[in-house]
């Protein structure tokens, strides 16, 4: 069945002149793949099935059902919710502080040569230091309360976001700036009405990356020093050889990361509908 249109296309392409007609036929017959959503759902079930199979081989890996039961237990006792709230609070506080500082600093670096000269070496230097490597220092200086964790998350979010904001400002099309100048705009207007909207897509990508690294950092920070949170819970489970709880932690972290990314992606596509996508 599917071989027939293929063959027809091949034969017309062979006899037809190089330009014109047949291109439409080629693209229309190629549109036969199952939708992305179907593939996504299928791959989730495949993954779960594979996991189940591996759990049956005696590799000490808990089965999906065991993990689900452990998850229900943790949720029923209220521990799961407390942990999620603790981790999310840290992530969102650090992320919001980090991006709130990164956006003006990124604009400053992109717009003023002097700011770029003064700030870029520091940003590039700290970018090469993994935020986790700062944790020991942060704990020594700030104690074992919330500050060192939030600080490290803040740093991770800031560094990811500042670079792409800066890139966004630098790449603004000179012709657009010239067009605005010809229409009577001065520097302030050009900044607010050309540079900011033109670099929005870059800022949003930076925020997505920033949120990703904030979420990655919180778990690691909690592994090292915390009294609650998803990372702490996994650390405890490790001591008691409680594999299902570790799996619950991994799944919850992954799911929340995914949901937060999707939310930002939705905001991004709403704010950048004007972009010409190729």
């Amino acid at each position: 069945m599917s071989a027939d249109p293929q063959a027809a296309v091949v034969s017309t392409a062979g006899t037809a002149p190089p330009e014109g007609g047949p291109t439409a036929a080629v693209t229309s017959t190629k549109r036969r793949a199952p939708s992305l959503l179907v593939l996504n759902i299928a791959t989730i079930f495949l993954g779960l099935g594979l996991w189940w199979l591996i759990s049956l081989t005696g590799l000490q890996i808990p089965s999906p059902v065991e993990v689900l039961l452990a998850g229900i237990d943790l949720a029923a006792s209220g521990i799961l919710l407390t942990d999620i709230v603790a981790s999310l609070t840290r992530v969102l506080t650090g992320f919001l502080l980090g991006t709130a500082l990164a956006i003006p600093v990124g604009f400053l670096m992109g717009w003023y040569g002097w700011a770029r000269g003064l700030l870029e070496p520091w940003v590039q230097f700290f970018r090469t230091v993994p935020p986790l490597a700062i944790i020991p220092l942060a704990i020594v200086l700030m104690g074992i309360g919330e500050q060192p964790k939030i600080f490290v998350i803040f740093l991770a979010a800031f560094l990811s976001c500042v670079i792409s904001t800066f890139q966004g400002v630098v790449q603004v099309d000179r012709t657009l700036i010239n067009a605005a100048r010809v229409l009577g705009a001065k520097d302030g207007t050009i900044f607010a009405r050309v540079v900011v909207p033109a670099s929005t897509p870059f800022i949003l990508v930076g925020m997505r990356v920033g949120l990703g690294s904030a979420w990655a950092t919180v778990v690691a920070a909690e592994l090292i020093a915390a009294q609650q949170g998803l990372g702490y819970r996994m650390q405890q489970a490790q001591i008691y050889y409680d594999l299902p709880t570790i799996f619950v932690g991994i799944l919850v972290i992954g799911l929340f990361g995914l949901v937060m990314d999707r939310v930002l992606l939705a905001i991004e596509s709403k704010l950048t509908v004007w972009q010409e996508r190729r």
Partner: protein
Amino acid sequence: MNPAEQTLTATDRKIQVRDITKHYEVGGKRFEALGGVSLDVAENEFVTVVGPSGCGKSTLMNILGGLDEPTSGSAVVDGKEVRGPSPERGIIFQQYALFPWLTVRQNVEFGLKTARVPADERRRTAQHFIEMVGLADFADSLPKTLSGGMKQRCAIARAYAMNPSILLMDEPFGALDALSRVRMQEHLLETWEQDRRTIVFITHDVDEAAFLANRVVVMAARPGRIHRIIDVDLPYPRTEDVRLSPEFTAIRNDIWTSVYHQ
């Protein structure tokens, strides 16, 4: 307009280009983009500038628009030396330069908003020029949904909305296909004939240069300079008949020879 006024405006120098040179340093070597260009453009003239690439026509245009500074010499518009860009000198760019996040209407209103024109007047003015370029049905569309020709018409409306003293056009139809280009030329002439605003139009298309202009300035390269100025004594409105007439062909061939056999 009475005949007395016409003779007066013909001698009135709207644009004066005075012995402009422009040098660039490229990799330590000096590159002479313009080597002494002088040109007068009268009020109500439509001047096209044509020449091979590297003849400095875009550089001349940027200097007239105030986006670039000459190494020596000066550009004077309306008796004032050009220093930096101004809404008085509208520019149409080859790449359209529409703000992609703004609708057609918001693009046309951009400069009016900058000039703090009250909202209702702004809207009326924008509407007038959007209708003039035939984009009324697309006033609330984003640029990404428009064809190249429509984008450029939006840019033309945006420039006209500022009521500029002169219009500078830098290969505005260069990115369009041949048919859209001809349509845009006819459309531009229709608009121009309404108030005969002074236009300097850069192109590398000899037909386009001949079809639009009162006067064609042919430039030569290395260094960029004016090679010849050719008057186009064909009546407006320039219809298809004009385009297909032997007189047009003769002028066009004359320009062609000047451009390609300098």
